[in-house]
């Protein structure tokens, strides 16, 4: 029996090797493994054997069947152009080695730089100012009278009567105008502070970006244009915006700017609290008293200013539900912002 098996093995392997195409290979398969094939015949013959002989022959025939099947498959793969995995010298499924581990950029600053890029494209320059600021720049020069309720809008950290942590990026407006004559178009990103307790939507430290344009005849319509251009570029969609009258001491007229909710398209959802609108910035025409504080002659210039919270925009963009996540510096959070954003 063993002899017959050995002979069959060498003949079959030779025939597989000699086959010059798929039809020839198929013929070999039928001749050996088919219903009337030689190996099938030997398997049928097992029933005439007994005891150890039957068991040994059965095992050998089955092993041969596996071997020949594998050889047929391998040969077939060769005809079809593919190569069996075992044909390689290396295990190419092993994990690779990165040139360097991948770090991440903080989502807040990614959004901040992204916003700056859009305004660079529109012709704005960039500047910054101190975070520990004089009451004068943060309030007085911005037309917040002393002892006026307007100061309550922003809870302020004070160091003494004259020095505080800026509550807004707006003081940089005045510093800029003190140093330069119009025309000017500038953005001022940076960190600001409010003396309030942290919760899911409030942090005592957060980021804002301020914009200022001053020229001989800049108008509220130009502001609307600028805002629309920004929204279109940043959110990548034709999201309508609307102006709602509001009050800021340093602009007159003052508005709050809403954009149609990016999550629901204006039909109302949890993100926009069912209103269909998202408040994205405060804005307005620079108040004449601010020009006066900056030393510009009355009536010579007009200008607009706007300010927006970067945290909120980052949260919107990335679907972050709790502002505190931005300041915890947990790698399980930070690692989600690897790569191109």
């Amino acid at each position, binding site marked *: 029996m063993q002899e017959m098996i050995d002979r069959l093995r060498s003949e079959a392997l030779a025939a597989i090797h000699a086959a010059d195409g798929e039809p020839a290979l198929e013929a070999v398969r039928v001749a050996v493994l088919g219903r009337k094939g030689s190996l099938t015949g030997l398997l049928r013959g097992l029933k005439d054997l007994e005891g150890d002989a039957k068991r040994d022959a059965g095992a050998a025939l089955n092993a041969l069947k596996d071997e020949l099947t594998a050889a047929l498959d391998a040969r077939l793969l060769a005809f079809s152009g593919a190569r069996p995995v075992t044909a390689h010298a290396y295990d190419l499924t092993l994990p690779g080695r990165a040139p360097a*581990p*991948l770090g991440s950029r903080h989502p807040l600053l990614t959004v901040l730089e992204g916003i700056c890029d859009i305004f660079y494209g529109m012709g704005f320059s960039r500047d910054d100012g101190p975070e*520990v600021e004089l009451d004068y720049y943060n309030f007085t020069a911005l037309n917040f009278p002393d002892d006026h309720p307007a100061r309550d809008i922003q809870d302020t950290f004070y160091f003494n009567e004259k020095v505080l942590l800026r509550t807004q990026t707006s003081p940089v407006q005045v510093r800029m105008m003190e140093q330069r004559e119009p025309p000017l178009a500038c953005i001022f990103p940076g960190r600001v502070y409010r003396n309030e307790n942290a919760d899911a939507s409030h942090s005592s430290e957060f980021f804002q970006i301020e914009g200022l344009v001053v020229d001989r005849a800049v108008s509220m319509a130009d502001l609307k244009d600028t805002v629309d251009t920004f929204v279109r570029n940043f959110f990548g969609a034709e999201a309508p915006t609307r102006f709602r009258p509001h009050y800021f001491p340093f602009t007159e007229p003052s508005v709050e700017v809403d954009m149609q909710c990016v999550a629901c398209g204006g039909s109302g959802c949890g993100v926009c609290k069912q209103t269909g609108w998202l408040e994205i910035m405060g804005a307005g025409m620079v108040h004449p008293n601010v020009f006066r504080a900056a030393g510009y002659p009355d009536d010579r210039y007009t200008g607009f200013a706007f300010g927006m919270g970067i945290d909120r925009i980052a949260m919107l963009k990335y679907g972050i539900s709790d502002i505190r996540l931005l300041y915890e510096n*947990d790698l399980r959070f930070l690692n989600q912002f690897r790569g191109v954003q």
Partner: protein
Amino acid sequence: MKISLEWLSDFVSWDDEPAALAVRLTAAGLNVEGIEEIRRTFPGVVVARVLEREKHPDADRLSLCKVDDGTGSPVQVVCGAPNVRAGITVLFARVGAELPGDFRIKKSKIRGVESCGMICSAAELELGLEGSGIVELETDLPNGTPADELYGFQDTVFEVEVTPNRPDWLSHVGVAREVAAIYGTKMSLPPIWNAVQGGESLGVKVRVEDYADCGRYTAWGAQRVKIGPSPRWMQNRLRAIGARPINNVVDITNYVLFELGQPLHAFDRGQLAGSAITVRRAPEKTSVVTLDGQTREIEAGTLLICDEKGPVALAGVMGLGNSEVTAQTTEILLESAFFNPSHVRRASRRMGLISESSYRFERGADWDMVERAALRALQLLQEHTGARIVPDWADRHDPDHRPADPLRLRVWQVNRVLGTAVTTDQVAQILQRLGLKVQPMGNAESISASAVNMMVHVPTHRRDLSLEVDLIEEIARIHGLDQLTGRGGYRIPGGAVKRPRDVARDRLRGWLSACGYAEIVTSSFMEAGDHDHLGLPADDPRRRTLAVVNPRHGGDTQMRTLLAPSALVVSRRNLNAGSTPPLRFFQINRVFRTDLPLGRELRQADEVLLPAEPEYLQLVVAGWRETGLGGVPADLLEMRGAVESLSAFLRVPLTLEPGTDEVWLDDGAAWRVRDAAGRVVGLAGRVAPGVLAAFDVDAPVALAEIRLDDLDLTPAPARFEAFIRFPAVKRDLSLLVPAAVSFGQVRDTVAEAGGPLLESSELFDIYRGKGVPEGRAAYGIRLKFRSAKGSLKGETVDAAIGTILAALRDRWAIEPRG
């Protein structure tokens, strides 16, 4: 601020659903933040009289009553209230009635006795009235009158956000004016008391010490006042906007405040000493008890209302308990005044006491409303307390007070600021709709920078309108901000200037993140113990922090003077969270140093009070316990390598010099980083083990810090130099270096001795152990030689190597190995 639409409709009408009105108001700048529907009905609850009351046969605390509910046949009902008795008029819930909380009244048996309904308490009907037990009504109400006629109430209430510039919106009449302007309709004011001439005198003299503190003070009298509950419609309205009814007199003063915006105060005349009221400042610190029962310290200078004995009210803020209206009050002195806004604000801040009055006074009261509000209150007092109004009153006001000057308006400027093309007529119409008086000027149609088209007279309730631009805002609001159309994007003359520093910083961030560092944003505050945990000496200037004087409860107060603590806190957090080390972080952040020069030109003298805010780049590697070349910790090698790479990346020469001035760094494992001029601009190294322990960090932390302000981030562009095309010759040296000699010394000697032909030397191995003598290490160094003149000959290189080996032997006793 809450606005009841039911109340509002007294003064103005509008043809819109509440939601649509809310949208119009929001578009006009009065942001409606919430709309609340109030529907209070009591189906099946009626007025009834208790005919008989006897004790329940089976329960001591229960009564068995027969009531007449107007149906003709008496109804038997069990009642548990102690105050039930025959003859009183009550609210009765018939079988089938529905009470608040989905409570349905059914016929039932209580301790074996049938009960067909329920006599109701105020709480069961959620009436919000004072007192316990069942409600006792006036006896003249007919039985069977539905409770809805008495207490039923439907209203829609707006929660509105009123900006500080619009105190006039803090009243229903003020909002009515806006509604009238929006819809172009008329509005009316509530009725007032028609003063009767002659008769009794008030008998009170008013004196105002300084009109700067109090521009106007009026006092009015009402006698034979009967204190009791205020009328139900008034209670309903007050409750609808969130105020609590107290009694008729107090409710009337509150009602007028919410109706007209003018705070009033009612004194119990019987409790006032003497017949003189003086408005004056407190000469010294004193202690008083306010209406809310609190004892308060008041500072010298606080404005007070005083009788002949002393203070009876904190001007504009709150009355005192000593002259409060009580159930026994029969005579009232009513105050209506105009207090200086900032004075009220300061007093209210200092005491931490913000009242409805102070809230309005500090935003600015309406001069003309002082008198009208008092007259309205008197009319209500007469009608609802049975009071007899004293026909005479006291009125003291600043003799120099003048109405505001009219404002000049140029239509040219309107269109310049808004980018619109509105006409003189349109402008005039809008302003008139807002109740402003417009006086056309001669050249009404001329539009130019110098042509004043109209003079605008501003009423006393719009003292926020003081400049031409304020009028322009009004025009924008009413004209409609959605009408603005741009001219296709404002083009900035000159265009953007991207600062090289911003460019460099942004590239740096991108590069570091690609190197495996995660960017962090840490707080500008540091914790109180951080300086001690770092072990900073007592005289270290970085201990001189700026501290916030009014921090949040439990918040940090000190501005950070260095970044190190934040690196340790972030490392600890992430190591504890189980992230796999090594952890890499970087941050670019400011610190706040009062000891360093500001480094910019001062524009305001006070700027000397500001700290310098230098910006640092910090790299952190935490939790890495492996060692690298020569047994040096891997994190240290990475910090050195990072600073060297940073130097190459920014093209700013930086060198590392072993040693440190920082007590919180491990002395033997730290460098100073110097710039080309030799100035120390940063540091690198491992945090000292004791400091790690103080910050509760259970793993090594290495960091590097560079002060970015010190670096020139705009290096000159690279300049191409022709490179040598002749091949290099490479030779490897294996050197036995004594332990006392550092690689740096070897490197320097090799470079010096190698001469111009030596292009580079590179350390590729350090080996100690078998085959190397004790006290020595085998250094594998690869040398590369090249000449600009031609291919190097073997002998030339051999000679150069000979010179190098000789120098190493002579200077450091270094021998070649094998």
